């Protein structure tokens, strides 16, 4: 029915014979890549929006998550929707630079978003303009199994030295100190990001991912030296290169592993596996270099208006609506994630509360994630290097040389 309406609308507009019966609602085409739960949350928000704006009809076309990443390149240039999901940071740069996303700085200034969405403004800005509206983000950190801590008889650490000491005791108890599954590469990047953020700080991390610092720099080597303290004695799950992140989550659930550097979306998986708020813990990644401002990792999901959008005005109206405090509260309650709007309320879930607390006190800055802060090609080569390092820490010099060679080619 909606399709028919669109078709009718299109032909009506083309022939300039709009009768009031046909042109009741103006259509906004929205392409997205939601999983089932977020999809339901968004459909509810869209229904609210349409109730408040009866003359606008948002037509949501949902894509498979992985397929979306390739199809977006086709539909942006061929048959552009009015709204499209994507990610903040460097991940949107190719589309911004190719002129595929529309500058929506006016939505930001008109709705005072620079204040309410302040924490995400930096990652939405390229060339001093804003290119999208963030609606959710989630923290990364260390999720741990409280029973494993009891079994090994250790306390939750606050410094890196304590963390490494604990690892030795976990190993004696036959528990993997840190688990991960790097088959899909990105979980390893989460560990690297935190190692580098804690060793060298947020500003250095951003310079590195922006290609301004050599990978063979001594400060990068320091990061890997700290990381080696974890890898060389075998404190990381063996064979992590062959397992998926969900399989590693199972190890944490079963108490075969103690800590997992992960994003908050993993909580659902841990709880499905039978963990509760009593057995699952969350901690901020411990301090390595004392005194540097604490930077954290919180990838942001965003909505953009493609340059080829036909109904820009209503699309902007929808973005302004998505940015409001109440909508973000409602949306993120359903998503189980954090609202970007600083006047929204955070859900009651203890992990969300902990994440919100951690992020709002992060004085260093908020990184997106390695594959969003660094350009795609660098991200791929980098993440392979991290995986190799976690299998063969002795290759560190060869790995860094390779990354440096890639950096010189990719950033020009």
């Amino acid at each position, binding site marked *: 029915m909606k399709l028919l309406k669109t078709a009718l609308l299109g032909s009506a507009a083309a022939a300039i014979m709009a009768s009031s019966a046909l042109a009741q609602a103006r259509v906004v085409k929205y392409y997205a890549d939601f999983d089932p739960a977020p999809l339901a949350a968004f459909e509810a928000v869209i229904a609210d929006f349409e109730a408040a704006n009866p003359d606008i009809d948002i037509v949501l076309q949902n894509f498979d998550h992985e397929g979306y990443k390739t199809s977006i390149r086709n539909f942006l240039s061929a048959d552009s929707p009015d709204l499209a999901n994507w990610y903040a940071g460097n991940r949107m740069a*190719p589309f911004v630079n190719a002129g595929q996303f529309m500058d929506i700085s006016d939505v930001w200034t008109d709705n005072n978003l620079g204040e309410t969405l302040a924490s995400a403004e930096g990652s939405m800005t390229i060339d001093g303009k804003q290119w999208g509206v963030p609606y959710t983000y989630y923290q990364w950190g260390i999720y741990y199994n409280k029973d494993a801590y009891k079994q090994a008889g250790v306390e939750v650490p606050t410094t890196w030295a304590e963390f490494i000491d604990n690892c030795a005791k976990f190993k004696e108890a036959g528990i993997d100190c840190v688990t991960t599954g790097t088959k899909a590469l990105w979980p390893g990047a989460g560990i690297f990001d935190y190692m580098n953020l804690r060793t060298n700080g947020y500003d250095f991390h951003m310079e590195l991912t922006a290609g301004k610092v050599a990978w063979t720099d001594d400060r990068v080597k320091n990061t890997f030296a700290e990381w080696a303290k974890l890898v060389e004695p075998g404190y990381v799950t063996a064979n992590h290169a*062959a397992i998926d992140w969900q399989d590693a989550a199972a190890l944490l659930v079963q108490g075969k592993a103690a800590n997992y550097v992960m994003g908050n979306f993993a909580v659902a998986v841990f709880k499905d596996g039978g963990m509760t708020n009593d057995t699952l813990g969350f901690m901020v990644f411990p301090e390595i270099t004392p005194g540097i401002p604490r930077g954290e990792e919180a990838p942001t999901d965003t909505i953009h208006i493609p340059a080829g959008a036909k109904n820009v005005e209503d699309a902007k109206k929808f973005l302004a609506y998505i940015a409001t405090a109440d909508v973000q509260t409602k949306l993120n309650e359903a998503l189980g994630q954090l609202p970007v709007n600083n006047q929204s309320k955070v859900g009651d879930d203890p992990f969300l509360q902990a994440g919100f607390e951690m992020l709002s006190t992060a004085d260093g800055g908020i990184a997106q994630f390695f594959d969003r802060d660094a350009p*795609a090609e660098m991200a791929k080569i980098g993440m392979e290097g991290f995986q190799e390092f976690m299998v063969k820490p002795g290759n560190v010099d060869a790995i860094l040389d390779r990354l440096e060679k890639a950096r010189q080619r990719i950033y020009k």
Partner: protein
Amino acid sequence: MTGSATTAIAGTRSGKPKFWKTNQRALAPWIFLAPGIAMFSLYVIYPIIASMWLSFYDWDGLGEKVWLGTQNYVELFDDDAFYTSLKNNIIWLALYMLAVPAGLFIALFLNQTVTGIRIYKSLFFFPFVISQVVVGLIFSWFYAPNFGLFYNLIEWITGTGVAVLADDRYVTYGIIAAGLWPQIAYCMILYLTGLNNVSPDQIEAARLDGARGWRMLWHVILPQLRPATFIAVVVTVIGALRSFDLVSIMTDGGPYGSSRVLSFYMFEQALSEYGFRMGYGAAIAVILFAIMMVFISGFIWKMIRDERGM
């Protein structure tokens, strides 16, 4: 027959130019070939030339194409990942050839008349029927650390398990083993049909002359299986060179790119989530095409020679 019928019809239309009538024999084959030629040029020849052309550009699929000249190739020949892929392709080619003798011996073994032999034949053929994706999944579970059958077997024998797909030394061999499973079945079926055509007279004659066992196989059976061997080698070489699905399913090229083959590397560079270097991907494709051309030319040369009866 058809020719005379058309002539008759053409003859009744008086006053028409005689062009068709005089050139009919020369034109008819081309007209029949035209649909095929059109399809082939559009879907095979044109993409090949377009890929070669693209390999001289830097293009991300969205923006402007930038002319690079041979720079993609210069970079390719200085790229460790390319040499890893090339090396793996050669390992694939060499080890995949095992499917030919293995298929032959299973075929010889199954070429007998026992009750229910058809069931055994179908069971042996089964791996070729199921999708490569399923084969890849089965083998990744087989190799999986902690619960995989193979992992536990090695652990039981040696004390420490080996996660084949996480170890850059074994990963390519692990994937090839998975690929051989259906490929052997394919070669087997080719040889089974070949064995049906082996002339019983010659075997009888050879037996009278005292040939048996290996000598019988080598001097009497194998020469008659030559067409089957040729096809088996061709499909195996092509199968080895286009190995992509198993790599993608089982390891995604990992760990750290050590199980890549050229076709997978091309996909990664040009089309995967972190890729979109169309020009560089096209350059890899051109290299892969050049390697394939060596084999294809060889096969075609042999076929032409056979047809001329040399």
